[in-house]
């Protein structure tokens, strides 16, 4: 890595004692010698293992659940169903008033995706819990499912989630988060060329080295300590408090050393049910995802479909941009309504465009619920926007790098969500890339600056 100190030297104070020093990480010796304690290294006498019975169907009504054989299985201590969960229907972002509550801790009456948790089995050993889980009999009436966002939005599509009433998240602005800036139709009317293209992604996995999980122990004073690898301690504590209808003072979460998260450990899935298990049995409980569960059950990055329509002038100026984004939330909200509107604020990217029109939809399908992941709401948008930029440049016969200089935002420019640009540095990044990659651009672009003054 090279630090290029010649850029922005006039606005930066160098020469600090500790900041800017490449000190070795204080926890790395423990990590590389295997001595660091992760949550799963904690073992308590009498600890039970929790395994889930999961839906084999994408969408089905539950006619009945028979746990009698599982309860008789040697080693089984407790079997939990929806009836045992005090506040079974929840949603994580209800903490910031993003509702409605739309997801069940344990399925009640219906399953909406393949892999949804239906029954929790607590047993003396992992193997006994697994064997007993296989003995739970669930009678399903399979329902029509919808997996494609466009299909889900059509009238008459199977309704994925009754708590929403339609297959999209209802924002205060309506069926999508809108951004309106300038007059996009006037921009298209003025443009020399118009290009409309669609981009699509599929879900991807966070692939942390350490799978999601927690270990819970009752403390004997009516409190529960939960060792967890959550990415957000108080998100987890507060949601658990709601789900279990238990004062937060009874809950103690310990974490902070996590073997990779990338957004996959922001969901509150394992802790509430494990704490409930500990409460109802009076014993420590361990609930850790297998690698298969991590890959099949934990929330992936949402699949997205993005339609970008641009109006561009022969000289390279983009004069209008219309973006319609669709985020596949899967069966439940989790963090997806937030991601979709974060995307709306991100468009039209780091470019100054006078006329912008954006709609972003959070769509429900019978797929694995998606949620936060590194680059949440932005990564796929950047893919779409930057491939579109390449196409636009070639359409009007400009060098792709020079085309970006023409449109790059600078200090003081107003973005589509009506925030003034501060601290811009896109131009300088491109100037340095031009040098490093030996991709020359015209001298006038190398003389540009993100500072408005003198540019």
């Amino acid at each position, binding site marked *: 890595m090279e*630090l*290029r100190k010649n*850029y922005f030297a006039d606005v*930066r104070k160098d020469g600090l004692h*500790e900041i*800017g*020093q*490449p*000190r070795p990480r*204080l*926890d790395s010796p423990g990590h590389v010698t295997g001595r660091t304690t992760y949550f799963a290294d904690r073992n308590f006498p009498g600890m039970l293992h929790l395994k889930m019975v999961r839906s084999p169907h994408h969408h089905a009504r539950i006619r009945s659940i028979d746990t009698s054989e599982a309860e008789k299985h040697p080693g089984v201590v407790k079997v939990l169903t929806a009836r045992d969960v005090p506040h079974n229907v929840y949603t994580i972002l209800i903490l*910031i008033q993003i509702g409605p509550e739309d997801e069940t801790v344990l399925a009640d009456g219906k399953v909406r995706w393949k892999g949804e948790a239906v029954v929790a089995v607590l047993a003396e050993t992992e193997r006994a819990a697994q064997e007993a889980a296989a003995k739970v009999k669930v009678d399903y009436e399979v329902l029509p499912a919808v*997996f494609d966002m466009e299909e889900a939005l059509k009238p008459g599509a199977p309704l994925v989630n009754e708590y929403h009433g339609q297959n999209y998240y209802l924002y205060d602005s309506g069926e999508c*988060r*809108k*951004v309106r*800036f300038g007059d996009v139709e006037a921009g298209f009317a003025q443009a020399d060329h118009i290009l409309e293209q669609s*981009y699509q992604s*599929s*879900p991807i*996995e966070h*692939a942390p080295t350490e799978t999601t999980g927690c270990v819970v122990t009752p403390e004997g004073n009516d409190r529960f300590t939960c060792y967890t690898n959550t*990415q957000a*301690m*108080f998100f987890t504590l507060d949601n658990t408090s709601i789900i279990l209808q238990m004062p937060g003072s009874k*809950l*103690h979460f310990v974490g*902070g*050393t*996590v073997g*990779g*998260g990338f957004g996959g450990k*922001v969901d509150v899935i394992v802790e509430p049910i494990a704490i409930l298990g500990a409460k109802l049995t009076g014993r420590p409980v361990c609930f850790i995802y297998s690698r*298969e569960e991590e*890959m*099949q059950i934990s929330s992936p990055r949402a*699949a997205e479909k993005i339609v970008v329509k641009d109006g561009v002038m022969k000289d390279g100026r983009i004069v209008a941009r219309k973006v319609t984004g669709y985020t*596949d939330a899967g069966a439940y909200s989790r963090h997806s309504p*937030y991601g979709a509107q*974060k995307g*709306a604020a991100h468009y039209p*990217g*780091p470019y100054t465009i006078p006329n912008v029109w954006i709609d972003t939809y959070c769509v429900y399908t019978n797929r694995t619920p998606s949620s936060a992941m*590194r680059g949440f709401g*932005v990564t796929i948008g*950047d*893919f779409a926007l*930057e*491939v579109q930029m*390449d196409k636009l440049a070639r359409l009007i016969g400009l060098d792709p790098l020079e085309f*970006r200089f023409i449109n790059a935002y600078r200090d003081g420019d107003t973005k589509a*969500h009506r925030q003034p640009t*501060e*601290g811009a540095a*896109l131009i*300088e990044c491109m100037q*340095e*890339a031009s040098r*490093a990659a030996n*991709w020359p651009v015209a001298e006038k672009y190398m003389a540009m600056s993100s500072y408005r003054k003198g540019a």
Partner: protein
Amino acid sequence: MAIRRGRGVAAINYPTGMNLGGDPTQALVHSTPTGNFMVTLSSVDLGQGMKQIMAQICAETIGVPTDRVVIDTADTDTGPHCMGTFASRGTHRAGNAVIQAAKEARQVMLEVAAEELEVNASDLETDGQGNILVKGAPQKSISIFDVALSAHFKRGRSISGRGMFLIPRSYPEKETGAMKPSTCYAHACTVAEVEVDDETGEVTVLTVKNVFEIGRALNPKMVEQQLVGGSWMGISHALYETTEPYYPSRDHGGTDFNQYLMPGPGDLAETEIIVLERPSADGPFGAKGPGEMCANPQIPAIANAVFDAVGVRIDTLPITPERILRALKAQAAS
């Protein structure tokens, strides 16, 4: 049939924070009797190095070496509130909270030192090595160790401070979408060079040259580690990864690392990382959040390089050999 070479560029920005929910983080700092400093947080270290960065931020602010700082984090019984480790917010939000707490603790430390040295606290400075000196008369000094002993055993003072950083919640305006969902922006520009085998559709990423602008590199080695890892993740996202190869069909999803494709050591591109620093007005020592941004520009840069190499656009991720071959076939047919 040939191996064809192409290159592509992409430029991006990335927001720090999650203001659409209100974005608070708090920190507490106190000294032990021996003059070490304890930072108490609820922020989570995901392996990215949060603890080390908070230790350096606290050390710089108080004026001691980093190894005099201990981080106690992510215990809800002891730590004040943190929104969480996501949205590229960890260093930025928690860092600001630690600075505020450390400044308050430093002020108490200087007041105790001033009483010991019989000067005004405003006449004192730290040497970064564990000592407090009188400005202009460095021979008149006291160690932070002795200041802590004095505070605890003689003067009954607590060398401690409270830090709060809150970005108030932004509510998007319904009709225009006017909102402030984040604070500062990090920037990047990547140029990728690829080879595409037009017979097999296989893509080899030869080089990625990444320029990242991240406000300040608080610890350049750790910045490098995060940016190199992120760059790998971007390549992986562009060419390999999917939980649903036939999305929206749910079948064929991987269940382990044998089935879920990611680039191995033999697939690594030659990776060049260049860092620019334009300090953000509200960042701790100017830092912005590079954590998520660093995995994004490689994806479109590679897509554009594939087009440059073989003249087909793959607008669906991941850019698999199958998709390239189908597009080449369609191109040849038309």
